[in-house]
């Protein structure tokens, strides 16, 4: 049976959520599912991969993999691929990077951020373009199909029958050239940075309507009252009103909170791409025809500088009473 190889990214809990989504997604192709793990995986990883239907776990380890080098990871993917006809990873920065190296070394095309398989033979997929606002149907006709799977393309789900994977230590030949671009050191993120934004249940979004760097006090108070995070549109960061790590959008963070309160944001594609998967969207905007208002679930028409303080006041009044 032909195989699909998945490059699995891990964190302390095992395979990352997007990697588990990718494993779930590729099971639909009907191939044997193999996984590649680079470096030391956390305890229980092999069992977890088996639960997701993986039959073989390739393991690349050793000096070449102690610090991240995309080209070395690509060499590991090629060593693990064997006669796999499909090579995939999650559409993360690292997944897309390693697969681009792999596709280039194999001399094949690559499809980034696939969300659907249109046809298995010949293989055709649909993938996100224009920041996820449109899909491109694309043929993958090479002997090895290389594609990444976009985040949230499916929900992660264990296989109906769990497998007991065979663990296969890889012998990877990594050249000196593969290690030219290698992480020399890392620095931890600021504790307050976008980690909170990406996982927040409530995001209060602010756009041009905030009016200036001093226009955020009420918005920050609403954020505080709801225990959420502040997210801003690109215009806000490019005007220097707020720092870039608060930016939500195609070139900022992608968020999917339970509630997104879009204050003074018109809803350009660039921003919509970063928050359209929010469960509920409440827009506060002076323009009833703004795309953000027409696409939202709920809206209040008017100036955010009048509405947000009134909402804060009402929240305080009810919590006191």
């Amino acid at each position: 049976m032909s195989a699909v190889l998945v490059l699995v990214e891990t964190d302390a809990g095992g395979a990352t959520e997007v990697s588990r989504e990718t494993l779930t997604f590729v099971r639909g192709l009907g191939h044997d599912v193999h996984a590649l793990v680079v470096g030391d995986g956390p305890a229980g990883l092999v069992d977890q991969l088996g639960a997701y239907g993986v039959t073989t776990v390739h393991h690349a380890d050793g000096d070449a993999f102690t610090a991240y080098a995309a080209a070395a990871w690509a060499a590991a993917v090629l060593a693990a691929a064997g006669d796999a006809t499909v090579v995939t990873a999650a559409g993360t920065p690292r997944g897309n990077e390693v697969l681009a190296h792999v596709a280039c070394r194999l001399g094949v095309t690559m499809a980034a951020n696939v969300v659907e398989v249109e046809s298995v033979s010949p293989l055709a997929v649909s993938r996100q373009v224009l920041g996820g606002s449109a899909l491109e149907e694309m043929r993958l006709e090479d002997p090895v199909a290389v594609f990444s799977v976009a985040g949230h393309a499916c929900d992660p789900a264990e296989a109906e029958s769990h497998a007991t994977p065979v663990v296969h230590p890889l012998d990877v030949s990594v050249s000196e050239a593969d290690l030219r671009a290698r992480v020399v050191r890392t620095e931890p993120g600021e504790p307050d940075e976008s980690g909170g934004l990406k996982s927040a249940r409530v995001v209060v979004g602010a756009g041009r309507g905030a009016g200036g760097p001093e226009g955020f006090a009420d918005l920050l108070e609403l954020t505080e009252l709801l225990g959420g995070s502040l997210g801003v549109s690109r215009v806000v960061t490019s005007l220097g009103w707020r720092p870039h790590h608060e930016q939500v959008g195609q070139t900022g963070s992608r968020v999917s909170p339970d509630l997104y309160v879009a204050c003074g944001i018109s809803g350009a594609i660039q921003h919509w791409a970063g928050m359209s998967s929010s469960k509920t969207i409440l827009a506060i905007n002076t323009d009833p025809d703004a795309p953000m208002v027409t696409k939202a679930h709920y809206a209040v028409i008017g100036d955010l500088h009048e509405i947000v303080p009134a909402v804060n006041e009402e929240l305080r009044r009810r919590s006191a009473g």
Partner: protein
Amino acid sequence: MSDVLVCIKRVPDLGGEITLTPDGLGVDDSALGHTVSPHEECAVELAIQVAKDTDGQATVLTLGSSDAVEQLRHALALGCTGAVLVEADASGYGPADVAAAIAEVVRAHEAAGTTYDLVLLGNDASDTGDFQVGIRLSYLLDRPVVTGVSTLSVDGDSVVARGGAPDGGTEIFEVPLPAVLTVMEGGIEPRYPSIPGRMKAKKVQVEEVAPSGTPVGAGRVRLKLPPVQPSQVEVLGEGPEAAGAVVDLLEKLGVVR
């Protein structure tokens, strides 16, 4: 001295809606302005800074129709001193084709005496989102490549590049020159063009070249838009009087602490 080549792409400046061309193969941009992606704006800024700091030259390149000279002139107004138009129908060029066309220019300029210590690109194009051109170019030129770079500094014969790590921290690379780097928005503020900059930009001769070889293409069958949903918005009210209705909603959603 470090000479830098920065590669940009003319893309439609999308507002809130997208319309496709009748054949479904592209975005109807006839009523839209054009721009380059935020990542590329930052790449241009970094190119200009490196050139200035090292007494080198920053050259901007694009592959596209003659309309893309607009984006080249903008980069010239910001501080690039040379510009190359690889004239081709970009829609027929896949990532491998674009990389090959850029490599051709790099080699031709090298033969003419200009070696680019750095080739900068955006991390991914805002329209096609392929995430590949920089990496494919690095293999064609046999140079190291770092992607997702937010800031960089050239130090003698190497470059230190910083970018985001999967855990939210920062990864630092130090690679020997010449190198290829793809840039991500977030580390620096792109400058605005000055009036003298714009005047100067008009006088620069844009080098026009035709790529050799036939492109393999991007494998595109068609574009699809998500079905347009009729607006389902429930207007809670107008102005501050709607505050009660808003808080009712927040309570219903269970997001009030």
